[in-house]
């Protein structure tokens, strides 16, 4: 796909996220919208090695979503990638659905892990990467999607220490650095900076990107695969709620969903693609 096509794909995924959340009546809007470009880059920018027709393919990369509450964007991406029917997205959070409020591997077999409580994904990624690098000695890559808020948890630092000790070069962590968490801005709730220096002190290689520049994201992901002897974290600077002006930057939208009027406004907002496309809903 060209960059333009990738951008359109990301926008389509955002649209699906809005529709899913509207239908579900609960869930997390801001983070889901904010990470649409990263997910698009991973699955449609030739970054992650995957095969929706063969979910247990041994050579596949592993994608772990640690800040699992933004799963609507992952479900939508997986639907676009061919793992599940687009129409199934509307079952999000409903009784009997494969699309649980937080991802469940027991319900949806293409998930690599179940998640929900923060700060568990990176440690799991470490176990997988250790196995691939040190025991099985295979080429599988581990993509761990993490968030800035969960860096408050001590177990994140345990995992960072572990990956640094064992030089798990086959992990690329991508941090959704959107500066918000439930109670407010991250630097007010519990300051995280300087993240770069902190990771470096733990023997990680750090890259930083504009989390909405798909070209930059893909480039950093590719770069992370040629950094030897060190795990890599890509700090993706994102705008929470990206693409919908009244959600952007509002930490109040971390854990709420649009009502029908807001959803219509949101989709109109997305369809204009920065004013380039006129919304058909007008």
């Amino acid at each position, binding site marked *: 796909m060209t960059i333009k096509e990738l951008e359109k794909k990301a926008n389509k995924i955002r649209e699906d996220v809005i529709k899913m959340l509207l239908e579900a009546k609960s869930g997390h809007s801001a983070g889901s919208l904010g990470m649409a470009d990263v997910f698009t880059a991973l699955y449609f920018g030739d970054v992650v090695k995957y095969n929706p027709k063969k979910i247990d393919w041994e050579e596949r990369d592993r994608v772990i979503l640690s800040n699992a509450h933004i799963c609507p964007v992952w479900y939508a991406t997986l639907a676009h990638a061919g793992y599940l029917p687009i129409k199934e997205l509307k079952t999000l959070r409903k009784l009997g659905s494969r699309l649980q409020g937080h991802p469940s591997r*027991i319900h949806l077999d293409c998930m690599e892990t179940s998640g*929900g409580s923060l700060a568990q994904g990176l*440690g799991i*990624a470490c*176990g997988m990467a250790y196995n691939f690098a040190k025991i*099985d000695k295979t080429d599988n890559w581990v993509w761990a999607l993490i968030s800035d808020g969960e860096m408050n948890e001590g177990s994140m630092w345990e995992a960072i220490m*572990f990956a640094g000790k064992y030089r798990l070069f086959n992990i690329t962590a991508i941090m959704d650095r959107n500066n918000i968490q439930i109670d407010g801005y991250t630097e007010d709730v519990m300051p995280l900076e300087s993240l770069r220096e902190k990771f470096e002190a733990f023997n990680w290689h750090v890259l930083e990107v504009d989390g909405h520049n798909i070209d930059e994201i893909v480039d950093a992901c590719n770069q992370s695969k040629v950094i030897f002897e060190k795990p890599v974290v890509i700090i993706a600077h994102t705008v929470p709620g990206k693409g919908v002006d009244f959600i952007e930057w509002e930490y109040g939208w971390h854990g709420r969903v649009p009502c029908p009027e807001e959803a219509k406004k949101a989709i109109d907002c997305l369809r204009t693609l920065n004013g380039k496309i006129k919304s058909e809903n007008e």
Partner: protein
Amino acid sequence: MEKLKVKMNKNMNLSKDLYNKEKLDKKPTRDGYGYGLVELGKKNPNVVVLGADLTASTRCDWFQKEFPERFIQCGIAEQNMMLVAVGLSLTGKIPFASTYSVFCPGRNWDQIRISVGQNNANVKFTGAHAGVSVGADGATHQGLEDIAITRCLPNITVLAPCDMIETQKATIAAGEMEGPVYLRFAREATPIFTTNKTPFKIGRAEIFKEGKDVSIIACGPTVHEALLAANDLEKEGISVEVVNNHTIKPIDEKTLIETSKKTGAVVTAEDHQVMGGMGSAVAEVLGKNQPTPIEMVGVQDRWGESGEPDELMKEFGLLAKDIKEAVKKVIKRKK
């Protein structure tokens, strides 16, 4: 003739010196874990062991020496150790995450609940140094709640083997079954009263001694105290059945219902809080299926303390004499 009344279950092949505490060899149950791991490691190249800076005292150093490439030092970081174990299991390994029960499942319960449990990950995790019998380290280091907080998690198997030999069997059985397993061990050397021929199957409680007046249902090294109590009580004319209930989950409802139907009175015994422990699990089964008077021997809703292990067992009422008192009490309650 007096002796003939004591009906041991011959199929259990227990040690012939069963009631001679002095003659029995004593080893900590955790030694059985060490032996079991080495045996599993030889059989299956997918078995890996994780440690959290307690490698020798959990006996993982024996595995580490044999298979250094399959031992992973995680440092004092039990939460991450459990997550690493999950990652290993989801990519085909059979990890044994090993530390003390106060740390695992004590400190990393959330990781067990979500990443182990809700992935149904094939992770085995151990709580060594469980019970007040840990001794002088005191309350912080005496894991008395681990059974309660693991058995409430769906799909997780919970095992508390009774001696070193049974622990070895339990370790191997855990490694050979699919799914998460919690294994509980004690620190102190305790009598080895089972033999290699004693049957062990996860999910099946074994009747170590048959009787008709009362059933003592025990787990862990306390099973031996139960047998000593039973032997004494026989001399007083009370016929006691002793059940080794090593699998707390999935619990063997059938055996528990049958024994209580037969005797009509139950004493549970464990080195764990009575709230939520093995005894509570038994009470849940019997309350629903076969209401029976029950007395519970265990730690009675208090914190541990420092002291010599035998002093503490006495102080907390976990010895044969305490089990005997409970038996007499429950018999009075029989209808």
